[in-house]
């Protein structure tokens, strides 16, 4: 008698192997990771100390540094997103197989997108601080270079999934290549383009809030100063402000999304 089984034998072996590998990886990590037990004994005290020293929050730090840094963070994230959008369009056009029919160019563009995504924004910021010196310029470029991969990938996917009809109609009417891009492709990808932009802007606000830790401007600089001085009441204010900004952007982006998209 044959029993019904959901998966083929190969699939079943593959799944079992994956589970075993996962278990092995966890056990190996647990046994070899370096944890210094001496540090752990006073962890509860340290944590209690952390919160005790954060309270009461030092509001005078707001006027001193935080307010200005907050504005800088906002502009870093926004300008970085705009630069990323501008730069990702040509890369996405090169990466989309139906627009650029050359496998080599597709591969080059894909490589640019993957490298942009695999290097973290904080690491991009380190590099740009070394080049342009500390400040918001480094942060803006870090945000931009990190976002190219994300926006470019989603844009290229949107371009590849497009229905062919309008493009063929334009081509049949004798439209040149530029006009096909502008009047055939653009109107169809425009909604997903703006929704990706909004999504990335939301992420970038969070990320630009920490870039200051490596000297790339924004509220992170205030946080870093407070941390280095061990003024935990000022750290508390920075954390509170960052939390408020993150919540506010999330509310704002979801409101914009439900209104226009």
């Amino acid at each position: 008698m044959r029993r019904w089984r959901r998966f083929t034998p190969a699939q079943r072996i593959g799944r079992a192997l994956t589970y075993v590998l996962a278990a092995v990886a966890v056990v190996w990590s647990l046994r070899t990771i370096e944890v210094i037990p001496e540090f752990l004994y006073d962890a509860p005290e340290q944590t209690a100390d952390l919160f005790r020293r954060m309270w009461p929050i030092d509001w005078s730090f707001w006027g001193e540094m935080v307010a200005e840094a907050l504005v800088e963070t906002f502009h870093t994230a926004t300008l970085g997103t705009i630069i990323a959008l501008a730069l990702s369009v040509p890369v996405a056009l090169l990466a989309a197989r139906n627009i650029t029919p050359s496998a080599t160019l597709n591969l080059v563009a894909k490589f640019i997108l993957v490298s942009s995504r695999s290097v973290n924004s904080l690491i991009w910021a380190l590099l740009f601080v070394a080049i342009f010196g500390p400040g918001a310029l480094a942060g803006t470029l870090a945000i931009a270079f990190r976002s190219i991969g994300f926006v470019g990938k989603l844009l290229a996917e949107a371009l590849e999934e497009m229905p062919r009809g309008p493009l063929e109609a334009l081509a049949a009417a004798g439209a040149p290549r530029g006009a096909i891009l502008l009047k055939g492709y653009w109107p169809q990808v425009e909604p997903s383009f703006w929704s990706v932009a909004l999504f990335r802007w939301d992420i970038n606000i969070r990320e630009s809030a920490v870039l200051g830790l490596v000297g790339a401007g924004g509220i992170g600089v205030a946080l870093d100063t407070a941390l280095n001085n061990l003024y935990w009441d000022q750290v508390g204010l920075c954390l509170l402000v960052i939390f408020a900004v993150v919540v506010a952007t999330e509310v704002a982006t979801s409101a914009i999304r439900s209104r226009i998209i």
Partner: protein
Amino acid sequence: MDRLVSAATARTPFPANWTARALWTALALYVLYACGILDVSWDRFVRGLDNGARFLGRMFPPDFSAQKLDLLKVGMLESMQIAVLSTAAGIVLSLPLGLLAARNLMPGWVSWTARGVIALCRSFHPVITAILFVKAVGFGALAGVLALVVASMGFISKLFAEAIEEMSLRQVEAVRATGAGFFNVLVMGVFPQVIARFIGFCVYQLDSNLRNSTMVGIVGGGGIGATLFTAYQRFDYDFVLTILLAIIAVIMVAEVVSAQLRKAFQ
């Protein structure tokens, strides 16, 4: 008849969209304004390019000496351990948290509390959580693991709760009708419907934790980020390039593997 044809030909196929033009102009004005605020100027950019050429000159050729490769290996392995452990712990904690946050299984006050916890986990960047954990448990990999556990809980539980809310309740009712208790309903009615998506989220989070584990080291959370930051502060730029290349390579491999895994488990 004549007038009708001329009217038709006179109509432009793509009339000018003045709202769009105004918005594009506003965007351009904002860019100029923001450049002014952030002190982004052409002059600085050009000076930076000069600097950048020198920087790149010092990065090349990447440093592949045996001693540096050892450091690289140790850091990279620690990053992988951080990623594996934080994902494992994150999965274990997200299962109950996600269940508690599902509004179709739990009473309102439970799910709203769970949702609050999830929102709190999601609102701070892993680097900030890492700073707090470095203060609490000291420098090293453990702080990095804990920071990424928080991030994983935020991501996996949120999506897991949404997956549960989207599942069909008929199977749950059928299992309930047999007289099954709450635990049996979960195992027989709920999990079979959502487990494939849950595994997908977990694999995605493993990938994302690997990326973030390269970053928590900058604030003292261990892993390859610590190696990178030390090399950077010592102006060992050729070793920095080696580390960057290694990170890109590892993450590319991880991306391919995780895509394959997600496809296999769908």
